């Protein structure tokens, strides 16, 4: 009996294209969107070299060491920092004015740099010049003979710095914020398990679906059929969550830190909370499926929003002004579990969240049981 119901339920769940989209494809698509929005720089379009000009006059030609250093970092390879135009003062001024270059370098009582704006690229140029000035006195021989010894690591450092700076969205955000957005995305996906819970309840209730009526007239306890169906639903949702997790870790290369075991545990408990939440909604709201789906989507979105999915700051605002809300919002509890793994060295905060999630799961299951236990209906 168990495997009969379980296997058929698995089949009918996996073949439900509509819900498979919402519970699997939608979160993956959303994660790709997040990823594109948050990380402008990826392997494909790595750091672009910075266009600069050098005034190629007699003073410049006297500084052969600088020329060597510059030609090393502007050599056409993957570590290339600068794309250099050698030209006169007048045309360099014009290039800068037209935005063709970010700045120009000339010798006049030492090294000089003229730039138009101040930005990442400009500070890179400056950093390079400072570095040259610092090292040239002590290491001029090395530069002359083997520029890569010094500038090899400089070029790498600077490239990475640019990438790092560009990955951070505007404002005072730091890279952790980006990961936090993915935490809330996982939390939302856990809550989307509600779809399956909703479906299983409606499939068992004679006043909600025709197949429900069929189950109710069969000589098998409806709660038995229901429990097995819920197990199938939870199984599928867990597989979907872990597929998302693998996608985030291995395809998008999101760094979730080292405590993957705890992350898996949170996904597991979060899935149970999501599926039982949907079951409860479905048991209470006996209306049409469309209305229930709307409640579930709306509810999950609001909870995910309040845990910081669209705007990371909201989480802080709530924990400051309405701390109770962050403890009764399952999405926040899930996201916050991940968060606490990242931020706190101990696991106390993490376990409080997990226990609260378990408590919610039990509460949702119990209330659902109270409603489903009734075997006769007042109206069908």
């Amino acid at each position, binding site marked *: 009996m168990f495997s009969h119901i379980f296997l058929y339920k698995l089949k009918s769940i996996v073949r439900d294209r509509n819900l498979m989209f919402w519970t699997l494809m939608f979160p993956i698509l959303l994660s790709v969107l997040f990823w594109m929005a948050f990380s402008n720089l990826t392997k494909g379009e790595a750091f672009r070299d910075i266009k600069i000009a050098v005034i190629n006059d007699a003073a410049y030609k006297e500084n052969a060491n600088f020329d060597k250093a510059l030609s090393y970092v502007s050599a056409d390879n993957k570590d290339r920092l600068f794309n250099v135009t050698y030209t006169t003062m007048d045309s360099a001024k014009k290039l800068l004015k037209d935005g063709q270059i970010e700045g120009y370098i000339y010798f006049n009582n030492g090294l000089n740099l003229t730039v138009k704006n101040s930005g990442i690229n400009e500070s890179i140029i400056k950093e390079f010049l400072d570095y040259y000035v610092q090292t040239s006195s002590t290491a001029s021989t090395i530069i002359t003979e083997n520029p890569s010894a010094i500038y090899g690591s400089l070029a790498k450092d600077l490239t990475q710095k640019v990438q790092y700076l560009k990955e951070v969205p505007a404002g005072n955000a730091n890279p952790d914020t980006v990961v936090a957005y993915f935490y809330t995305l996982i939390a939302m996906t856990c809550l989307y398990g509600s779809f399956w819970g909703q479906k299983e309840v409606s499939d068992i209730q004679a006043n909600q679906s025709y197949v429900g009526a069929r189950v*109710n007239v069969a000589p098998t306890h409806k709660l038995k059929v229901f429990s097995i169906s819920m197990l199938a639903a939870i199984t599928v949702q867990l597989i979907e969550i872990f597929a998302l997790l693998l996608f985030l870790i291995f395809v998008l290369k999101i760094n979730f830190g080292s405590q993957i075991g705890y992350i898996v545990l949170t996904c597991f408990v979060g899935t149970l909370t999501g599926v039982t939440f949907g079951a409860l909604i479905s048991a209470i709201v006996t209306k049409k499926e469309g209305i229930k789906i709307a409640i579930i989507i709306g509810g999950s979105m609001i909870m995910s929003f309040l845990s910081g999915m669209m705007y990371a700051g909201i989480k802080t605002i709530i924990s400051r002004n309405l701390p109770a809300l962050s403890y009764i919002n399952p999405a926040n509890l899930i996201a916050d579990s991940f968060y606490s793994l990242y931020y706190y060295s101990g696991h106390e905060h993490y376990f409080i969240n997990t226990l609260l999630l378990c408590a919610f799961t039990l509460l949702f299951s119990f209330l659902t049981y109270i409603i489903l236990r009734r075997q006769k209906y007042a109206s069908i």
Partner: protein
Amino acid sequence: MVIKVENLVKRYGDLIALDHFNVEVQEGEILGLLGPNGSGKTTAINCILSLLKYDKGSIEIFGRPMSPSAYDIKRNIGIIMQNVAVFEELTVYENIDYFCGLYVTDKSHRKMLVDEAIDFVGLNDFRKFYPKKLSGGLLRRLNIACGIAHKPKLIILDEPTVAVDPQSRNNILEGILKLNKDGSTVVYTSHYMEEVEHICSRIVIMDKGKTIASGTNDELKSMIKSGEKITIEIFNFNAKILSDLKNMKNIVSCEFADNHLIVKSMRGENNLMVLLEYLKSNNIAFGKIYSEPPTLNDVFLEITGKELRD
């Protein structure tokens, strides 16, 4: 006694859907529950199946009180609800197997039963089809197969032929007769009197949640005053014919429309003969003549004062 329902009362708020409804179903019969839409047929079936709470009354099946957990009773019932109840994501075969599996746990026995059910409703060519791909009639047949695959002793069908093409309808009606011949007791609800007349060995006529008459087809028809309905094609009609006929004994009503004279007679013999003699002796030329025995609609009309069909 397979089913015994006594004084069943079911209210939906202020509406009384079943008003001291009584019915008894004997082993081996095909009982027809006939009534217009909204007369309470589905409500009665759902109460009998312990799906619906009811306000009053008692229900026994196979001599034992029916309840939601009376699994030994439920095991021997097959239900075909008025709405198609199948999973969209499962194929024809899988649907039947899934529901049959709630009754029969032995896998190889079940496989045989499912194959027989598919054969029975003629869905062999559609085993791997999803319900969405089936026409209305084939879907109804799948619905029936899901309800009867476990070979129940009692089969309850609630309007199984609504919105079905004539071919599937015949397939369904013949199927029901065959199931009955193979030993199943059948309860069949419908608002189509032709179907009920055709297949049912006993008929209960319902209106407004009450039984208004019951008996065999012939018994019901002999309860009422009106006998056959005679239709005669007449080419040169005059008003005198109508008044003459109305004065004749045994004639209940007569009217003329579209070149046809429609005469309803009382029950009894020789009504047609008397009529023809009148036409002959008055030299009235006539064309085609039809005579129809009374229908269940006439029974319903006479008891309730309204037509059965809507």
